[in-house]
């Protein structure tokens, strides 16, 4: 096996595979090292009667509970929110809901507009073309014309359907005179080559056997390999080899089923999320901002219970509609920034009983009645908050505790900031208003979803210079000769929406810059 690469990418998730596809060019050797293996979504658990058990085991969002072969331990004892990541080819898009909103222009200018966080060294217009390209690659359904966002190109597929429950929600928003719009979703409403249209089965988070719901492997891997990209799954990167100048990475040490190896590299691109990057760079990068300013999306979930049998399990659980009435900053709200309300459909019977959104059906004599009052009769709204970067919220690494390959165990250190806390409380009230307006007879509130550490942003933020950021606008790490980071850890602000479209668009932008600006220097070994 050839142990050299012009461009080596660590991590075959949403960013890594998009980057690999875009940077590939004739004569350029691109190798992706991924710790996890392939997930055969064609045999997803949703084809089996006991599919809901998979959500507690092999598809549990928390790596500390899942303990899969590629998972590494994360110390979350100092965090109010637990990690929710997936380690495999496709990364966390293997078990996601494929909700696919874009940042707004204001999200890139929070310092100038609101006096908080920072301004990005890129703006919405810089990224828009890459959003569009990525939408086509992933296969996005939606509807252009949303008055909550800048005009955008026609969506590749028509919007996904509403169901009885989400139609009630939409009517509730209308009664209040609030914004709502069908979600952009990386889920096909119309078939394309190799991928069937969504059939509204519901549990996108256990993989999609129809490949209707996109994941990075489904959307990008085959196209990347057709351009010559080599994926090495089951390859755990254990360290960086540095040149004598301390600035140039000459190789990546990794372990696969055959043992320890070294891949000599021209360029090194990290796409392993804030936790994975910290494991590799904790001993290498001493930039004062690295690891600091961790932003999550603190999320409350407010559930409305209806008298009608809504059969609310029908349709993709997390991709139906959003309300962005309270997205932009408004001083009258008592906090800085805004939030999004995202509809969540009902869940399967077991997950409903277990309290998948945080509210277990009580055991005992009232159990049957309580279950009947909830199952199929509920719809929920997330309160997804724009988080601010706070210095004490961070990813660090243990000095002594090591995982099975000898890498330091990352520590997730996070408390919900005062501003986010105020926003959550306000948002819970507004979500309650909306559900009441929709006709809910009862409301249940999960004030903070503990298992919501899926969006890890800001620990290697980009900046216009090295005093404002760890990387430049293309993810190139300041002070290092050939090291880039292209995942959500480069985000300057969190916005109030899922980060995947933005991180993929930025990865595509960085990849084209790398491809076009230079002929990669050949590896030395």
């Amino acid at each position, binding site marked *: 096996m050839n142990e050299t690469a012009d461009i080596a990418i660590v991590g075959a998730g949403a960013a890594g595979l998009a980057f690999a596809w875009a940077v590939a060019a004739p004569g350029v050797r691109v190798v992706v090292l991924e710790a996890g293996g392939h997930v055969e979504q064609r045999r997803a658990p949703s084809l089996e009667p006991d599919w809901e058990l998979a959500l507690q085991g092999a598809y549990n969002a928390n790596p500390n509970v899942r303990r899969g072969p590629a998972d590494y331990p994360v110390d979350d004892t100092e965090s109010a929110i637990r990690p929710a990541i997936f380690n495999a080819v496709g990364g966390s898009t293997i078990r996601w809901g494929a909700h696919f909103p874009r940042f707004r222009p204001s999200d890139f200018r929070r310092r100038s507009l609101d006096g908080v966080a920072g301004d990005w060294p890129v703006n919405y217009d810089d990224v828009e073309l890459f959003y569009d390209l990525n939408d086509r690659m992933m296969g996005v359904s939606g*509807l252009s014309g949303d008055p909550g966002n800048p005009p955008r190109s026609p969506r590749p597929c028509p919007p996904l359907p509403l169901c009885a429950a989400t139609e009630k929600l939409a009517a509730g928003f209308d009664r209040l005179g609030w914004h709502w719009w069908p979600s952009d979703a990386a889920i096909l409403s119309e078939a394309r080559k190799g991928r069937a249209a969504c059939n509204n089965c519901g549990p996108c988070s256990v993989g999609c056997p129809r490949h209707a719901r996109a994941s990075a492997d489904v959307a990008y891997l085959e196209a990347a390999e057709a351009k010559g990209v080599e994926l090495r799954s089951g390859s755990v990167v254990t360290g960086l080899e540095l040149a004598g100048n301390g600035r140039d990475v000459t190789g990546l040490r990794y372990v696969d089923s055959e043992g320890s190896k070294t891949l000599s590299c021209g360029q090194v691109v990290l796409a392993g999320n804030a936790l994975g990057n910290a494991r590799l760079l904790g001993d290498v990068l001493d930039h004062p901002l690295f690891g600091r300013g961790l932003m999550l999306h603190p999320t409350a979930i407010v559930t409305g219970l209806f008298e009608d049998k809504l*059969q609310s399990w029908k349709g993709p659980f997390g991709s139906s509609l959003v309300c962005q009435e309270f997205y932009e900053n408004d001083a009258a709200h008592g906090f800085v920034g805004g939030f999004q309300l995202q509809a969540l459909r009902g869940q399967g019977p077991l997950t409903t009983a277990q309290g998948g959104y945080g509210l277990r059906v009580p055991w*005992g004599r009232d159990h049957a009645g309580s279950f009947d009052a909830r199952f199929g009769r509920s719809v929920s709204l997330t309160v997804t908050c724009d988080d601010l970067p706070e210095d004490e919220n961070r990813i660090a690494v243990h000095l002594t505790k090591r995982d099975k390959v000898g890498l330091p165990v990352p520590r997730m250190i996070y408390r919900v900031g005062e501003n986010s806390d105020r926003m959550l409380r306000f948002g819970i009230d507004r979500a309650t208003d909306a559900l009441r307006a929709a006709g809910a007879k009862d409301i249940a509130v999960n004030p903070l979803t503990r298992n919501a550490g899926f969006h890890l942003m800001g620990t290697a933020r980009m900046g216009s210079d090295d005093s404002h950021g760890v990387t430049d606008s293309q993810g190139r790490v300041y002070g290092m000769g050939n090291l880039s980071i292209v995942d959500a850890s480069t985000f300057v602000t969190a916005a109030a929406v899922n980060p995947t479209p933005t991180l993929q668009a930025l990865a595509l932008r960085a990849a084209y810059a790398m491809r076009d600006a230079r002929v990669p220097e050949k590896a030395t070994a």
Partner: protein
Amino acid sequence: MNDPLTALLDTLLPGDGADWPAAGAHGLAARMQDLAKGVPDGPIALATILKALPEGFADLGQDQREDVLRRIETNMPKDFDATVTAAYNSYYTDPHIRDVIERLTGYENRPPQPEGYALEPFDESLLDAVKARGPIWRQVP
């Protein structure tokens, strides 16, 4: 009365005397023990809770058994939580219970795939009121 595990299940999931059977009487004890293996620390938790049950627990009435379990839940929350998880897992994956769910709610006793569910296409006219408001996003200089 029954053995302690069956009594425990019947207390957690007593049914409603009509549509929903009690979990223990329905014979789910063995399946619950099996599924406890898939819950983090499940077998140990279940053993701990069974050990904490007082002598004669199975002979108590439902109200008294619930009182006992609420005390145990307060004192051993983690083990009790894992036990409830295993109990619910056994109940809601049982084919007969899934038949009850289908009859009462319309949720068919089959996996979500490959059949999926039919929904009507999105009706854009629902958005007329939203469109009429005009843009609400913030322009950036």
